[in-house]
């Protein structure tokens, strides 16, 4: 059973007013979202925003405190065991067996997902190939580098060829090249028709997604394609200010009520219009003894969008 949205697109995940509290703490505060079949849906937000709690509720690992929804057409409140048959889940913390070899882990999950005997070997080889682990098949999982482990975990989660996969921070702690490879894999699966629901706190990964939801303190603060989000929420200009003392410059600008954020060794300053603020920033910083090496207008990144949205809320 596949639901359709108003435009006739089939829906893989849909929730309304999903809520989860832990005692007094509201981890997920009545969020609603829908994910179309075959798309890569990015769930972005800082640590502790409620990303993992949401994904766990969708996978049937955590009971929602309130709200309704379906995953793969099954009710998240009543049919969590049926949901588990059609999804693949990769948890935030690496959770395969360290003291099993690569192949033993794959065999184990193949058995647990009840992959039919005749398809088992084929699926195993496919996973080893996909994850680039053919050489390491007899290596103890414990000995693998983080990037390899990540790909193995993905492989084990999709052995049974699920319709929807949920990936909770799949790239945290992985080097940039492995991250890029990983996103290529995810892209490939999406092209093949698999729905991918992925959380991340790396804003630069957002551009890999077809659609995004930004979550902050349990609430969704924005939703749309990466392009939409930039256009809709970034009507103002972003200036990259290159200075010698970043923290001091940040404090000075904040003191003067100019919206700034630290990005590595530079500052991103969001302003209403470029011309007037160029002057102002230079003078304000010069007064407090910070040397300005350069000010440049840059296209807003999603991180700028996110910072702006959080300032607003």
């Amino acid at each position: 059973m596949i639901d359709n949205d108003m435009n006739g697109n089939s829906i893989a995940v849909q929730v309304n007013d999903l809520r989860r509290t832990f005692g007094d703490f509201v981890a997920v505060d009545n969020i609603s979202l829908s994910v179309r079949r075959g798309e890569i849906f990015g769930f972005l937000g800082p640590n502790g925003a409620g990303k993992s709690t949401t994904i766990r509720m969708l996978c049937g690992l955590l009971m929602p405190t309130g709200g309704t929804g379906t995953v793969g057409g099954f009710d998240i409140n009543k049919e969590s065991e049926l949901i588990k048959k059609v999804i693949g889940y990769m948890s935030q913390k690496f959770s395969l067996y360290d003291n099993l070899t690569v192949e033993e882990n794959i065999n184990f999950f193949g058995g647990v997902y009840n992959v039919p005997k005749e398809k088992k070997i084929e699926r195993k080889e496919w996973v080893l190939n996909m994850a680039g682990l053919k050489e390491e098949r007899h290596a103890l999982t414990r000995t693998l580098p983080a990037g390899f482990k990540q790909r193995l975990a993905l492989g084990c989660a999709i052995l049974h060829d699920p319709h929807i996969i949920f990936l909770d921070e799949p790239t945290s702690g992985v080097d940039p090249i492995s991250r890029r490879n990983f996103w290529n894999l995810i892209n490939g699966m999406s092209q093949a028709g698999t729905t991918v629901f992925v959380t991340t706190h790396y804003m630069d990964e957002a551009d890999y997604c077809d659609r995004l939801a930004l979550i902050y303190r349990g609430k969704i603060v924005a939703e749309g394609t990466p392009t939409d989000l930039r256009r809709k929420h970034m009507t103002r200009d972003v200036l990259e200010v290159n200075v010698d003392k970043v923290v001091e410059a940040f404090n000075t600008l904040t003191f003067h009520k100019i919206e700034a954020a630290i990005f590595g060794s530079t500052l991103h300053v969001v302003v209403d219009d470029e011309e007037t603020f160029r002057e102002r920033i230079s003078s304000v910083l010069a007064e407090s003894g910070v040397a300005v090496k350069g000010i440049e207008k840059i296209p807003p990144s999603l991180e700028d969008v996110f910072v702006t949205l959080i300032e607003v809320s």
Partner: protein
Amino acid sequence: MKLLRIKAITKKEFIQIWRDPLSLAMAFIMPVILLFIYGYAITFDIDKIPTVVFDMDKSSLSREFVNQFHESGYFRVNSYVESYKAIDPYLDSGRARVAIVIPEYFSKNIKKGFPVQVEVLIDGGDSNTATIAQGYSTAIAEGFSQRVRGSRMSPLIESRSRVWYNNELKSRNFIIPGLIAIIMAVIIALLIALTVAREWDRGTMEQLISTPIKTPELILGKLIPYFLIGFAGTLLTILMSTLLFDVPLRGSIALLLGLSAIFLFGGLSFGMLMSIAGKTQLVASQAALLTSFLPAFLLSGFIFSISNMPKPLQVITYFIPARYFVTILKGIFLKGSTLRVLWLEALLLTLFAVLVFIAANRKFRKRID
């Protein structure tokens, strides 16, 4: 239930146990160590209790009396003293645990037919030994007086006791069959208590519960390897008991193994329940140790006789499966009991196993909260 899933879990557990030599060693070395400790080191038999004698009579009759003690084998007379005061240092230092004081005119009064009192001082520090020594000394004294005046009159009632099932009264024969239950309880408690808790601790459970696996599949899959290891450990202890310690095995081996399997299954299910309820490895192993090993050791009748316990404790023992298993083991080993005698114990063991297995299945939640 899918056989394939159970098989996958069982295989994985086996690999993990195999790669963790400590748990495997625990399963096989522990029984051997425990068996040696209890089989050799701890004995409740008393013999050659060091004894000091203060003989005021110094007659041939008094010497014969002392000799009776010595020859019984239970006492070893190793010193003589010449005053009451001189006895104290012997008992104080433990050089002697029993002192025999023979009064003056001992032989004269006996020959005249007057009652004679011999004083036997016993070190009560070890009450078990003291009680037994008291019993033996009374028996020796009675035997002696009967022999001396035996010709004149014989007692009205004479009790002649014969000991059945363990006719040498070897405490080893009584301890080792029960010990098998204790050893099994230890292996069970320590090995399986970690199996579920460890997966929560390491985060692997989160992955596992996101799959369509069913609870009974998971629990059975995890039980099977421990059951096989536990059964191998049981066979090992049974073999050692009979071959190394010469404990007689008079009953049916098939019955012994069958009932052992039921006890093992129940114990493993209980350990599993603790592991599920405990959630962290530390809590789970402590809980398992407290709830299965200690009661099995103290309240099963393995060493401490249940009928001598205070009533409330006796009631508690009915809820301890080891109690039934100890009865079964002692019965099959020493008396050659059959199921006709042991049916109630067997039934209760089975009932316990089934109930605990169901409880473990119910307690397990395929959820994080």
